[in-house]
């Protein structure tokens, strides 16, 4: 039985999703300010690691990494509403790419699984 990551299409699927996802996030007034980095290449690389993790792909992130990476954003006001918005944009990206609803939910669940670490709770 193929894994979620394999079903979604692996690294090429992450590549296909990242531009659409990042475009949606930047257009979303609720969260754009957290992602509006001058260095767009750096942002895309970060979004790719996030998508890979959420797709169930290879990653060695620890809760500690997640906490460290988001500490500054939490200080700037990052909260549950923003995480909801990210997951929402992620789900609509996948639907736009024709991913079935069961897999969309599975990805959303994986993204949600790091919520506590991201929000440093």
């Amino acid at each position, binding site marked *: 039985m193929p894994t979620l990551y394999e079903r979604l299409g692996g690294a090429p699927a992450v590549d296909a999703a990242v531009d659409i996802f990042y475009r949606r996030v930047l*257009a979303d007034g609720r969260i754009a300010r957290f992602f509006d980095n001058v260095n767009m*290449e750096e942002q*895309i*690389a970060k979004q790719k690691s996030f998508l*890979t993790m959420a797709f169930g*792909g*290879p990653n060695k992130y620890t809760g500690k990494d997640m906490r460290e990476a988001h500490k500054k954003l939490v200080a700037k006001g990052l909260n549950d509403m923003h995480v909801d918005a990210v997951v929402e944009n992620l789900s609509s990206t996948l639907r736009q790419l024709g991913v079935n609803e069961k897999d969309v939910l599975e990805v959303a669940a994986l993204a949600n699984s790091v919520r506590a670490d991201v929000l440093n709770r």
Partner: protein
Amino acid sequence: MTLLTYRSAAIDIEPGEDVLSALLRAEIDAPHSCRAGVCQTCLHRAVEGAPPAAAQEGLTEAQKAQGYFLACVCVPKTPLTVIPTDEAAARSEVIVRAIDRLSGDVARLYLEHGPDFSYRPGQFLELITPEGLGRHYSIASVPEEDPHVELHIRLHRGGRMSGFVSEQLSPGDRLHVAGPLGTCFYEGVDPGQPLTLVGAGTGLAPLMGILRDALRRGHHGPIRLYHGARERAGLYLHDPLEALAAKRENFTYVPRALSDPGPEGGDVAAAVLEQELALKETAFFLCGGERLVGRLKRDLFMKGASLKQIRSDVFLAAN
């Protein structure tokens, strides 16, 4: 024979071990994060040997051509000498062969270089004065066609390098350069795809190199070059580019001078956003100040251009 060398030090690496793990084990403070070949934090550059293809997955063609690779997923099979990406570039000596003016405030410099200095048009180098003052300039020449490296130097009133170039430098003088640096060159572009070059001021220099390189490599898709300046006089290659556009069916030149009331007046970024339609298919090269490049990159991306297809080079003002 040692499999891994970092700068000039041999590093112990176990069979099947990745470069990042070996560097960390040798107590080298190599940046890293995901350790899965995704986040690109552990980007390094191989200066000798070829990294395995798996370690270059997800990088741009230009990065691959320069030997960049991801240390966390790089298990070398053949000897590799690696350096961090911020390593200072090698220095070499050059001889000034000619200096002339392209406009009131743009000087053109031709430098003779040794055989050890090899570059791709569009890359940049650091020009270093005998007093040790260094500034970055993009390369407008094409190594296969031009005997000398060509630089366009914007002369700022009161600028130290500007004063040096316009008042002290003469043909025959010897200088040092460091480099070349940068990955903004014609690589990973399909010869049939639309190619759009956008530059402001001396951002035209790398674009001239990239344009000539593209033509030399047989690019047959439509090519559009937008050049922006404040004043009309700043469109310093207006006539030769217009002549080239008349001769080449697939080449269009779009000049825009901010203060000009005529048809060639206005904001170059606005012209790009208005005239560029096949955003998804186009390869973009953006060269100029931070504001122009940042704004255009974002706007083109939001309108549908692929970020991978937008190469850019930001000219930072010297302090």
